[in-house]
Structure formats: structure tokens, C-alpha cells
């Protein structure tokens, strides 16, 4: 009982209005057949007694009012899923683009998902070793967390993300991650980089890639992350896999959302983004997590570029309010040639406390982390003071902090793109840099750990005096 109409009365940006319809439902999937036989897909955004507002994912160019046919398919958007999807590449709507065969569906899933009952969640507390010191020690990622990378144009977020995807593993277990990768409006080069990197390292075998490039239809970006997350949910909660989802670039997703909102003439919130941007993003990000009595997990790393590196822009701002922390990249470090240019101080992982410490990483982890943060903050402050007043105006103590923070950036933050440090090594490098400070300044570390882990060089220094 598929209903077909030829009653398009208005085409407006990504929207069409279909009149004289009956028995159409909200959110229903729509198929439009153009006069030349091309088929496009859309979704009902609003429905009143005799007209429906439909958003088209592949744009409205070439649609004519007289001859295009509209079919309401009586269901919401679904994708076929099966284990065969691993190793495959799809477009932003989920159609294969790697010349492989279509997917034989094990089942079909609604891409919008259902809200997860908070009571059914299990708390994420398994430490993920990414091999990147500034993440592992200071902004620890745990399994089931959503931790975005806030970047800017020209910064190496792709490299950082693919390094995480390549190296991520859980200590003590040989489990690795499957990767679901969704690209929204990124350039060919960027997507090529990921695909190539995944292929080269063999990661592609356990990856599913969805690619919507910059020149692909913008509105399609609204469904791409939903398809990716639906796939991830299938792999994680039905096939017991640990899935790492990378969504890049969320800024393009939000812009697509704004385009639809503007076409609907909705009252805008900040900077023209719709008032429901928070809720909309939350329905994506909150699909990450762990579930009681299920083996698998979804760890989500969305990447977004901050317009003008502005953290208060609505997209990073609302993201930060939903995700469990953020990794912020700093242009200043990048310009000085430091990779990964992670801006330590404003970066944060909210779930770190339950994932670190004895039996998870190492007993001194939390102390070392707090000490590094506060010492580095002090060092940065002293440096600022030095640029205003000149180095001479600093106290002896301040000078030590300046030296510490330089060393910290050079040894601890900086590492190779293919350098995979284990957590012991990362913590030891942390201690090595802390050894440059007088022992009585290490107020946040318990004495017993200082005895046990602090390299003895600093003690000798004091004796030499």
C-alpha cells in the first residue's frame, strides 16, 4: 500500500512540500522519482492534514513540480546490517562505493535508534591505552566514553584520530577495537588519508567506513552519523564487539542541520543554529556507552573544527556540554612543530577517575596527573609573566617552572605519529619531567610514590649544591 503522489507544490532549499496527501506519518521515509527516473530519498519533517514537508537528503536540484513522483514508504529510514559490512566502504547514505556487492541483510535497523534507558547503562571504567602520553596520562579515555577532538582548520586532527584508531587497546586483554568511521563533508584528501591509513595498517579489515565528501549532498550529512551509530550499535550490542566510532567533521553536520532549519523558517538560537541543536547532538552522542550484561561497547570520538578556534562557538560549546570531556588541539603548539599539539590545560576527560589507578594503570597515576596539570599551569603562568616583565623579573622558583614546562612539552607531549608508548613509559616520562622541580613542590603526590618513582637525579642535584 505504497502511496504515490505527483502533487509537489513547493520546492525550497532542501525541502519540498507535497499536498493533497492522506495517511502520511511523521518521520516517514520518502522516495522521490524525478522525471528522468532518478530516485532520491527524503524524510517527513512536518505533517498536517493535507500537506507534508519533506527534507531531501540528496538535494532538490533537478526536481520539477509537474512530473516528479513522491512515494511515502510507510516506515522510517532503515539500513541493512550484517557482519559482512566489516572491511567495506559506503557513501553517506549507506550504499557501497567500493565496487563490492550489496549487503545481505541479517536484519534491518531504524537509523534513529531509541533512547537508551539510563538505568540500563553500565559505567565506563576500562582504561583504553591509545599510546599517546597526553591522552593516556592526563585525559584518559575509557571504553564507552564519548570524547571529542576540538580542532581548527589546518590542525592535524586526522592524524591524531587515526593514531588513536590504530593504537587503541585495552590493557591485559588482547581485545582490539573495530572502527566505524563516518566522514561528513570532508575533503577527498582527508578521506583518502583515513582510507589509506586503514588499508596500510590492516585496520580496514575490522572497519566500516561511511564517506560523505565535501561535494556530496549536504543534507545527506544529517543521516550519515545516524547510519554509522546504528552500525556501531549492531556490532557492539548484538555482536559483542568493542567499537570505536569516529565522526568527522561534526561542524559540517551542524551546518546541514542549520540549512534545513533556515529553510523551515524556524526561530533560530545562537548564530542561526536551531534551538534544538543541543537535543539533536545529544541523540547522537548519547548512543555511545556500555550496557549492563552486554559485552560490547561504543566509544565515540567526534571531531569538530572550531570556527576561528573559538571554543564558545555553539558547536564545540554544546558538544562539550554533552560529551565526557574534550581533547583540544592548540595552534600554538602546532606552529612550534609539536605533535600531537594537544592543549593540555583546557582538555579534560571526565571519566578518567574511574579508569585509572592500581590494577587499572598504576597506583601513582592520579597523583602524577594532578601534579603535572598544576605544575604545567604554574609554568605557563610564569612564562606569561616573563613575556611581560622579562625573564629577570622571575623568582628562582618561577624559572624552574618555566624550564619544566618547556621540557614537558618537548618530552611528554611531543611524540611520533607512529610512536606507541605504553602507560608505564608515559608515566615514567612524566616523572622524569617532574624531577626538574624541587621535591617539596610536588605537593599533590604522596610521599611513598615520590620515594618509589621519582628518578634519583634530582636528589643528586641537591647534594651537589
Amino acid at each position, binding site marked *: 500500500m505504497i502511496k504515490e503522489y505527483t502533487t509537489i507544490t513547493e520546492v525550497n532549499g532542501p525541502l519540498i512540500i507535497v499536498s493533497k496527501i492522506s*495517511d*502520511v*506519518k*511523521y518521520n*516517514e521515509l520518502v522516495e522521490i522519482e524525478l522525471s528522468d527516473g532518478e530516485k532520491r530519498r527524503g524524510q517527513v*519533517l*512536518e*505533517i*498536517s*492534514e493535507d500537506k507534508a514537508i519533506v527534507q531531501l537528503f540528496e538535494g532538490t536540484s533537478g526536481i520539477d513540480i509537474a512530473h516528479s513522483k513522491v512515494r511515502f514508504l510507510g516506515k*522510517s529510514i532503515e539500513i541493512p546490517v550484517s557482519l559482512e559490512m566489516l572491511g567495506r566502504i559506503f557513501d553517506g547514505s549507506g550504499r557501497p562505493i567500493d565496487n563490492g556487492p550489496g549487503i545481505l541483510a541479517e536484519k534491518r535497523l531504524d537509523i*534513529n*535508534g*531509541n*533512547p*537508551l*534507558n*539510563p*538505568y*540500563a547503562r553500565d*559505567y565506563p571504567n576500562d582504561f583504553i591505552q591509545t599510546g599517546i602520553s597526553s591522552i593516556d596520562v592526563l585525559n584518559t579515555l575509557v571504553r*564507552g*566514553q564519548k570524547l571529542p577532538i576540538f580542532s581548527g582548520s589546518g590542525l592535524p586532527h586526522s592524524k591524531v584520530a587515526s593514531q588513536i584508531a590504530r593504537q587503541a587497546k585495552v590493557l591485559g586483554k588482547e581485545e582490539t577495537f573495530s572502527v566505524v568511521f563516518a566522514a561528513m563533508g570532508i575533503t577527498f584528501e582527508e578521506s583518502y588519508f583515513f582510507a589509506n591509513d586503514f588499508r596500510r595498517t590492516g585496520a580496514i579489515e575490522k572497519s566500516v567506513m561511511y564517506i560523505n565528501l565535501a561535494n556530496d549532498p549536504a543534507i545527506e550529512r544529517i543521516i550519515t552519523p545516524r547510519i554509522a551509530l546504528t552500525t556501531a550499535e549492531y556490532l557492539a*550490542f548484538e555482536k559483542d564487539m568493542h567499537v570505536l566510532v569516529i565522526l568527522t567533521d561534526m561542524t559540517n553536520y551542524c551546518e546541514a542541520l542549520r540549512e534545513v532549519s533556515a529553510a523551515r523558517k524556524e*526561530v*533560530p*538560537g*545562537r548564530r542561526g543554529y536551531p*534551538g*534544538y541543536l*543541543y*537535543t539533536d547532538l*545529544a*541523540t547522537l552522542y*548519547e548512543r555511545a556507552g556500555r*550496557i549492563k550484561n*552486554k559485552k560490547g561497547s561504543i566509544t565515540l570520538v567526534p571531531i569538530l573544527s572550531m570556527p576561528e578556534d573559538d*571554543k*564558545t*562557538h*555553539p558547536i564545540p*560549546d*554544546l558538544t*562539550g*556540554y*554533552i560529551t*565526557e*570531556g574534550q581533547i583540544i588541539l592548540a595552534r600554538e603548539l602546532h606552529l612550534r612543530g609539536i605533535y600531537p599539539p594537544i592543549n593540555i*590545560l*583546557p582538555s579534560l576527560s571526565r*571519566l578518567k577517575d574511574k579508569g585509572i589507578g592500581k590494577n587499572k594503570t598504576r597506583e601513582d597515576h*592520579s597523583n602524577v596527573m*594532578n601534579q603535572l596539570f*598544576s605544575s604545567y*599551569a604554574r609554568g605557563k603562568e610564569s612564562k606569561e*609573566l616573563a613575556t611581560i*616583565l622579562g625573564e629577570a*623579573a622571575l623568582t628562582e622558583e618561577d624559572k624552574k617552572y618555566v624550564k619544566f614546562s618547556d621540557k614537558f612539552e618537548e618530552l611528554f607531549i611531543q611524540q611520533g605519529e607512529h610512536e606507541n608508548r605504553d602507560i608505564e613509559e608515559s608515566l615514567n616520562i612524566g616523572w622524569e619531567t617532574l624531577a626538574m622541580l624541587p621535591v*617539596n613542590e610536588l*605537593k599533590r603526590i604522596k610521599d611513598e610514590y615520590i620515594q618509589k618513582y621519582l628518578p634519583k637525579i634530582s636528589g643528586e642535584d641537591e647534594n651537589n649544591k
Partner: protein
Amino acid sequence: MQQNVGKIIKVSGPVVIADGLRGAKMYDVVKVSEKKLTGEIIELNGDKITIQVYEETSGIGPGEPVYTTGLPLSVELGPGLIQSIYDGIQRPLDVIYQKEGVYIARGVNAESLDKLKKWDFKPMKRKGEKVVAGDRLGVVQETSLVNHYILVPIGIQGELVSINEGTFTVIDVIAEIKDISGKIHEIQMLQKWPVRKTRPYLEKLSPVEPLITGQRVIDTFFTIAKGGTACVPGPFGSGKTVVQHQLSKWCNAEIIVFIGCGERGNEMTDVLLEFPELIDPNTGKPLMERTVLIANTSNMPVAAREASVYTGITIAEYYRDMGYNVALMADSTSRWAEAMREISGRLEEMPGEEGYPAYLGTRIASFYERSGRVKTLANEDREATISVIGAVSPPGGDLSEPVTQNTLRTVQVYWSLQDKLAYKRHFPAIDWLRSYSLYLDQLSKFFEEEISKEFVIIRKKAMGILQEESELEETVRLIGIDALSRMERLTLETARSIREDFLHQNAFDEIDTYTSMKKQFLMLDLIIYFHERAKDTMDESSEISIDQINHLTAKNQIARSKFIPEDQLDKFEKIKNDIDQQIKSLISENKRKDE
């Protein structure tokens, strides 16, 4: 009953418009379509009614039916509320999980209170007594911490014609009351109350006691009163949620209502897993036994988020009416305001500032006004309080935005969270120069009588030092530290000590996470004592340098004083003696050098 079925004519997200429902009243609950999705009437326009639907509306379309229940959105009140976890419209999430699995399916129905569970009811009134609304009819042991008093329902008074002791379900009749007209009212333990209506009380009173939270910066400097209101605005990552969690863990209210309003799912999981393990320092029982959770996380339907704060405060009022001190945390009120904005946008209302509806201010004010210290209904002369603590999430940390501004106009305590402090890992990241509490004068008497006569003076001195620090820092930034006198440098050192040794508090350290009022006073007193002793000494002898003072071991003892357990508070007196000793030997050492 025929006329009570309407027909949908439009669907736009959570907003549904229907017609043909004659006799529908504003804020009545309706059931939408055959799936029986719960909704509420929010606008009446001739024959058309506008409904906000508390569940996802995919697959709903024009022509489908709408049924009215004729009742406003209400919560069920009675034994069994404590330790529950509800969504925004009081559906128990644990029951839904057992029934439906991990996802919240649509149209799912679950009883807010278990109708089969039996409770031991002990009467407190006898047959033949005259009772009025709010009187305690009897009591049920709800948890080991909470005596749940069954009150005479609001609107009923008269003579008790029967009352039964024994085990009953919440819907069994436990008593009968004959009113003046001779009508007999059957009383169940279960009562209902519409969420958008304030529960009545006899009289509102001014708060006189502090709500003690064990958080030093809050209790000592920016105290909230029992029955007071506070807001915690801050950008993301500044620790709003940790402050809210700390308060709900340690504050000395008897009942906690925690509303997770449009926030992260994992945070609710954290509460659910952690609270049953934590022991209340005041009673020695698990904290969960005094807590009601409302969780409408950000991915759950937006209209139910709008309702969640009302559901929460109604439950809080119900326990207040029994005579309890209740604390309600709402995290975050910004998400509630955004839910209002979204619904308002779908209604095509004329927007106010930043797209928020023009009635935003009124709604916020009337929510916070449901707090307070009151004389409850009943002849029994009871006083009880509701304290409300709301988190605010200003976009971009910009406090000039409408939700923050409207909140600040209403609340009496302002804890200003700064990301600058959070980056330095100074937690709680409450800015001591911007925050304020308007209760300090009112509560001085309590502190002076219960803690120490010196309390207010010490606090004032400490605040003065912190103020002075910010001025001195300005100088240091411009001219350098050498421009400061010895005394000024001492002030900087003491200020640093107040910041690092007193204000900074680690929520994840076993001992540091909670500090009693007595210990808070001793800690601050110690810092000020050291400051004044050092100052006197430097006054007397111009030879003593600030570095010498800094190197006294007493400084380290002060820094470690936060880790002194609550049962060893006599150690503070010993540290004071040590300070005297060390300063004495410092003076004599200097004298020897001179000679």
C-alpha cells in the same frame, strides 16, 4: 464518553495539534494515537488543541485519535518513592528496564509506585480524633533512614471514623474520615498531586539554619540556608556536576531529590552505582536510602524534560509536608529552559531573548519560589524546608545569557564556577571573589552559637586577605614581585595558603571529600593564626624575611591539616603550639645571628 476522542491534524516533532476534543482543559493529560503516547495540552484555540508529547512521535500522522484523561499531569505520592529512579513524567526506569529491555520503547506504561508491595502501617492517630489536612495519620518505615508519614490528604478534614494497623498496599484503605457534611472519605497511602501546582503550606518563614554540605568554600564562605536557593553557573568542564553530586552526597538534608535534567546518561549511572555504596556521615546509612532520582537524560524526549523539574519539586514538597528538610538538585536548569524554548518554537510563539519564550523569567522564578522554610499544614506545628540548588549551563560560559540572568534575579546564593580555576585543577572551581551568599548575616547567629564565637571574624579576615591578594597580584603583574613589601608578600603567601590548603578540596579523596563545620573552622583558624603570628614577628623584628617564614615546617603542617581525620581534631591545638615553638626558635635564631 464519545466526545472525548479527538483527531490529529498536524504533527511537528513533539508538538501535535488535534481537534474535536470538546471539554478539554488546559494542562490535561491526553493519550495520542493507538500507541497511547502520553502528552499534555499546552494551548487551546477554539476547537483546536495543542499537545506536547512526552515521547518520540515518529510514525504518528493526521487522522489518528487523541484521548483525553480529563486529569492534569500528576505524580503519585506514597511509600516507595525513595530509592526510585524515574523519568521526567515519573515512570520508573528500573521497572521499564526489566519489562522492556535496554531501550525505552514508546507508549510503555509502568506504575510509578508498586501497587502490590505491602508496607507496615502504624497509626499515630486514634479513631474519633479530629484531623485536618497535613496531620500525620500514621507512619511507614520506608527505608532504614526514612519514616514515611502518611498525611491527611490536602482538602480533607473531619473526624477519623476508622484507622487500621497492619500491612497494606498503597491502594488499600487505611483510614476513613467523616467531613462536616457527613461524607466519608476513604484514605489510601497513595495520593496524587498535579505537578504544576504548588502544594499548600500555612506560612513561609525566613531561613535560620545553614545547609551544611561539608564543602569548605560553600559552608564557610558562601553558605546556603536550609530552605534557601542557590545556583551554580559555569561553562562545561568547570565542575558543576561534581559540585551537585558532592552536595547530594554530603549535605545534611534528610531527603535528597536529584533531577538529571537533559544531561549525560553516564552521570546518572554514576549516581546509581555510587550512592548505594556511600555512607552518610550524619546517619551511617547508605545515601541511597534518602534519595529520589529523576533522570531525563539529553537523549530522552524533550517534553518530558520540561516536566521533570516539576515532577521533582512536587516530590520534594510532599516530603517537606511530612516535616523533613529536603534538598533538591536540578542539573541542569538550562536544559529545562531549552526544552521550553524548543516547544515554544514549535508553537510559533513570538520569541523573547535568544529565542527563549517571553515567560522564561516567570517560569524560573516560580520554580525557585517553591523552595523555602515553611510551617506546614496540619495542627501539629511542624517546620520544614526545601533547599533548591540549580546548575546553569551558560552557552560559551557567557553569563549575560537569559537563563543565567533570570536565575540570578531569583536565587540568594551564587557559586560562580570558573574554567580558569578548573584548568589549574583547583576544585571546586568556585570563584571566591565573584560568588556571594545573601544568607550570611541571617546565619551568623547560628555559626556563633554552634561553631565558635570567632567564626564570623575569622571568615571576614580570610576574605579580606583574598581580596587584598587580587589587588596585589595586579601590581605583581605590572611591576614584578620585588615591588612588594615584606608584609604584602606575607599576605600573598597566606592567600595562597587559604586557596590551596582551605578552598581547594578533593572530592575523590576519602577524607578530604567531606569536612565538618568544626574542622572547617579549625583549619581556617589555623591559617589565620599562623598569618597573625608571622605578622607580629615580622613587625617586631625587621630582620626576619619572608623566606624564613615560608620555610617553617608549620606551613607544611597547615597544608596537610585537611587530611586530619574528623576524630582527631585535637591535633589542631598541637599544630598551633608547634607554630608558637617554631616562631620562637626562629626569633632566637635570628638574634643569635645578630650577635
